[in-house]
């Protein structure tokens, strides 16, 4: 104890202890086969889409002599109703779909967490006002909002969709974070920080928030899947992003025609498969993360 080098050794030990905890969590995650499968599928699909985009596959040029061609050597996934290569479209569509999913999930989590922290920690009228606002947003059907925005701006852009998704998507995270904060703010360690005269922002975001981080991370991953599905369904009914930008939902849009569904299975099976596989994989991954991160289940 009287060792003069003890101060240095404190920091040194820091590293080994931290890495051992990480190792433990990684091992725990690897034991969950479904979660590993989910992670692998998510990574492979994302990488494939990104590589496709970097290679600059041609997804936009119609080949009118080769419309609705069945899968063959030149077009592994076949071609769509105006002769565009489906593999290229699924790859580029994947980039957009995943981008939409990740962007909206992260941003809505950030907004939800920040508002939830403020509402839960301060309580009282601040809490009341923020909860009412979230209820107003929740009561508004997302579909109507999208239609309104499309009607007002008279265009179907990617930006609109992202905006609507974030604005209407932060409430679940908000409620979760708020509830956690309401119970955690009564923990003794929060009182200790107050007794030391720490700033409220410090207590909220540096002391309490780390304890809420794991459910936020888990809900963000599952939200990615949710937003991808949302985008797909909106694009399917023709309210999503413009036709010129392919997304998985947009490609599926072609399958609205009965003759396509019955005669050209490849046009809807491949994008549909891509969506289902990705969403399924991300949900498996999210569940695995929950098992590792959520202390209540340990």
């Amino acid at each position, binding site marked *: 104890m009287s060792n003069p080098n003890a101060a240095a050794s404190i920091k040194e030990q820091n590293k080994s202890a931290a890495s051992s905890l990480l190792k433990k969590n990684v091992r725990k995650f690897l034991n969950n086969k479904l979660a590993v499968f989910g992670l692998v599928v998510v990574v492979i699909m994302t990488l494939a889409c990104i590589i496709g985009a970097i290679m600059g596959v041609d997804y936009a040029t119609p080949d009118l002599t080769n419309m609705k061609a069945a899968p063959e050597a030149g077009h592994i996934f076949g071609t769509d109703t105006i002769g565009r290569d489906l593999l290229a479209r699924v790859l580029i569509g994947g980039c957009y779909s995943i981008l939409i999913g990740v962007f909206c999930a992260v941003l809505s989590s950030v907004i939800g967490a920040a508002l939830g922290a403020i509402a839960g920690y301060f309580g009282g009228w601040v809490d009341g006002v923020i909860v009412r606002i979230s209820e107003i947003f929740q009561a508004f059907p997302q579909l109507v909002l999208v239609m309104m925005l499309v009607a007002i701006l008279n265009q179907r852009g990617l930006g609109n969709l992202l905006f609507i998704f974030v604005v209407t998507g932060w409430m679940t995270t908000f409620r979760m974070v708020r509830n956690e904060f309401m119970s955690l703010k009564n923990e003794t*360690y929060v009182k200790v920080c107050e007794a030391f005269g720490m700033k409220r922002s410090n207590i909220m975001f540096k002391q309490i928030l780390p304890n809420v981080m794991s459910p936020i991370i888990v809900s963000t991953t599952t939200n990615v899947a949710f937003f991808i599905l949302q985008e797909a369904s909106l694009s399917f009914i023709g309210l999503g992003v413009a036709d010129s930008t392919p997304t998985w939902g947009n490609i599926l849009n072609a399958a609205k025609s009965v003759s396509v569904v019955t005669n050209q299975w490849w046009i809807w099976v491949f994008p549909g498969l891509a969506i289902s596989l990705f969403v399924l994989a991300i949900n498996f991954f999210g569940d695995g993360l929950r098992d590792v991160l959520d202390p209540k289940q340990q």
Partner: protein
Amino acid sequence: MSENREVIFKIENLKTWFPITKGAFKKVVGHVKAVDDVSLEVYKGETLGIVGESGCGKSTFGKTIMMLEKPTGGKVLFNYGGEFKDVTKFNKEEMFQFRRKVQMVFQDPYSALNPQKKIYTSFEEPLKVHGVKNEADREAVMQKVLKMVNIQPDYLMRYPHEFSGGQRQRLCIARALEVMPEVLVCDEPVSALDVSIQAQVLNLMKDIQKEMNLTYLFIAHDLSVVQYMSDRIVVMYLGKIVEIADSRALYDEPLHPYTQALLSAIPVPDIHKTKKRQVLEGEVPSPIHKPSGCAFHNRCPKCMEICKTVDPAMVHHGAEGHMVACHLYDKEAAKA
């Protein structure tokens, strides 16, 4: 003995009431009078024990002195080198400085350390906040306080769940000492611990008190613990002080009927000794609807007519510094 000692805390008519609201418009329909008109003085270097049943306002009293609860009324005067300043009127900066003078040890050591952070981080943050910029300086302070509580510095790298209750409470004490406070408010510091560990932590606290010349405000419901620790003892009932006395005087000659009943409940570690247990009837009345007159009158075995209407004032009786709020010892009331 008390005259020549320096007063560090002077509490005057302190009240902490929690409003009870009803309906959509939050109309205040009553108050929970957790701390109701408490006045006392705390001397420098002493251990002032505060006892009472659960719900009598001990913890709220401690938190109010720390300004973790906002008092409804009264003054908390703190001795700044001879000059008394009212803590309740402090602005943000003064309050921040006050935090260095008075620290608190909480009841539950299991939730007093942030479970997501290493002990090192939990120890580092208060020092950072209080302006110890240099890492080497911070670690020097940490080493110093950890030595006081007999915990090895390399334990700092661990997470709270790797420690036992006694170790955690020692860590909490060490953390409170980091800012070198003059007063330590201990809110039932050992009640969550095993009996075997309690003695260890209590002895440690006594040693630290001597070393740092600390003043303890020791809140507890365990009378034998309080007796062991305290120089003077305050007995509280329903938010009010019923008796203040030197530890020995209180145990040798309890004046208030409530104190007598409390003391008769201490088990004696001797099987041949039988002790007459004085059992109080009824429940503690709700602090919302307190009985009129003396709050204790409906359970008091020596209740008189006057007790039902007149609230007894603190009077001096017996040994020096022995104060009691009971009509039995009030000469004026006895005459009437």
